[in-house]
């Protein structure tokens, strides 16, 4: 039975991913890998609405930033328990997604892209100026986490292990989500939404649910980056940085969970190592984007699977 085959294969995937990221840790240092992991989580959340639901957003940084600031604020004002603080970040992002979702999810194409961007701009303004007395404005703010029982979250290795574990959970969760009937429904919303309604689905609700899940995971990535950096600046919510996640999603191959991870790693590799050699970083990104759009739409993962035919082969490097 094919279904059994794929499930056993998928169980190994989590192991593969874990091994890949441990190897990556030895290759580029564990501290950097933590960065990679967090970015990968963000790409996964983005790919849920771009790759699966077919909505290109230019405002996803809003949710990363909301998660980050909420975590930091919670940590400073309520409790320094890292788990609770990150949870607060996730909840705040998802709530914001639930409030804005009904407005944005009824648009498609260019409107969806730009309305999200506009909201992101508003959020950026609020953080930078509107609420600067809380957020520290341009300087950002620090967050100091306490210990969780015996676990010391100021140890970089601990953070690494913690983030990796969380990422494996996220991958597991999103994989369940995308291989469920709900996941198929998202793909049909991309192809022909009104037809899905004639199968009896209230697509408005499901689009909203997908959006909220995606924003929640983006908030999680935001919260984890506070854990990693212990500070937050407005660059966490800067709308011009959306291009990074779009780039990663495209280069990995939109609409595939493993593609999102591959794209996340590829982008982080490029952005961590190339700026040392390339002075004109934005120009480089722009040219790469053009190349992707014109000649390389399937992305890294698309090409890997095309040539190997085996999903779940070595990730990245």
């Amino acid at each position, binding site marked *: 039975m094919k*279904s059994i085959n794929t499930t056993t294969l998928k169980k190994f995937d989590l192991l593969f991913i874990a091994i890949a990221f441990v190897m990556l840790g030895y290759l580029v240092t564990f501290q950097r890998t933590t960065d990679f992991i967090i970015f990968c989580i963000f790409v996964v959340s983005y790919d849920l609405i771009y790759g699966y639901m077919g909505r290109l957003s230019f405002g996803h940084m809003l949710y990363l930033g909301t998660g980050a600031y909420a975590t930091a604020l919670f940590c400073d004002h309520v409790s320094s328990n890292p788990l609770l603080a990150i949870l607060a970040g996730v909840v705040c992002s998802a709530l914001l997604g639930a409030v804005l979702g009904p407005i944005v999810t009824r648009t498609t194409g260019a409107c969806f892209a730009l309305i999200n961007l506009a909201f992101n701009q508003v959020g950026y303004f609020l953080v930078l100026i509107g609420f600067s007395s809380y957020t520290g404005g341009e300087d950002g703010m620090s967050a100091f986490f306490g210990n969780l029982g015996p676990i010391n979250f100021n140890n970089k290795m601990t953070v690494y292990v913690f983030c990796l574990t969380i990422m494996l959970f996220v991958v597991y969760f999103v994989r369940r989500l995308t291989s469920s009937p709900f996941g*198929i429904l998202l793909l049909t919303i991309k192809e022909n939404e009104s037809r899905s309604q004639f199968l009896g689905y209230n697509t408005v609700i499901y689009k909203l649910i997908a959006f909220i899940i995606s924003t929640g995971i983006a908030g999680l990535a935001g919260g984890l980056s506070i854990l990693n950096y212990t500070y937050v600046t407005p660059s966490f919510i800067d709308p011009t940085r959306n291009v990074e996640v779009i780039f990663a999603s495209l280069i990995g191959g939109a609409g595939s969970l493993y593609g999102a991870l591959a794209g996340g790693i590829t982008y982080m590799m490029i952005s961590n190592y190339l700026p040392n050699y390339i002075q004109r970083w934005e120009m480089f990104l722009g040219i790469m984007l053009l190349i992707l759009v014109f000649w390389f739409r399937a992305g890294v993962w698309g090409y890997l699977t095309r040539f190997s035919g085996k999903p779940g082969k070595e990730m990245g490097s």
Partner: protein
Amino acid sequence: MASSVILETKGLSKSFGDFTAVEMVDYSICEGESAGIIGPNGAGKSTFFNLLTGMFPPSKGMIRFMGSDITDQASFKRVSLGLVRTFQLVSVFNSLTVLDNLVLAAVPFNSQFTRMSRFMLGSAHRDEVLSLCEESLIRAGLEQKRWSLTSELSYGEKRMLEIAMALLLNPKVLLLDEPLAGLSEFEISDVLSIINSLREQLTLVIIEHKISRLVGIVERLSVMHQGQIIAEGLPDQVLCDPTVRRVYWGADDQACET
């Protein structure tokens, strides 16, 4: 009347700008009946179906289904009540596999999956779901192609898939919009045999051009012309009606041969 009216419209109208596509249509169909609607292209048949299924709201008039007013109800709601349709141009999801198309149709009203957690996190290819789809695959003659991408199917196979999807939704009334259009003779007989087998189980409304193929199947025939129903009755009678003959065949010189 032996059984009760299941679907009816009163004064149903739809205009697009200056153009009235459907004008004051009173139509009703009883439970278990099978009815056909014919009429020249552009007579408003498809628009009528679109109104029935909630593709867009009517300009005037009302629609009742199983005793309740569904005029303003969203299309997905109507599907959940049991009002299901197919499309004139086959509409299936080309980016999915054949099986996934069926899975999506099998899931929404199946009590096992209505729980949100199962819908969102349960595998789409669990054995329970697959066994639900299996019968449909065989019925549609697609069991060899379950893992194929739907875009690779022939037009006729897509039509079979679309009908199979519609049936998985447990319809009470099934609206078929030109189910035979664009099919080869061979495929037509396949589709006709499926339709024939459905007559016993549910209420059918069929729009079709190939009038001759409809005569054997439907108990009642309505003729639409310029947005209105101009004749209704037993198929043989309707086809002999002089107005109908004039509208349908243009100049009407052939005598009625029945």
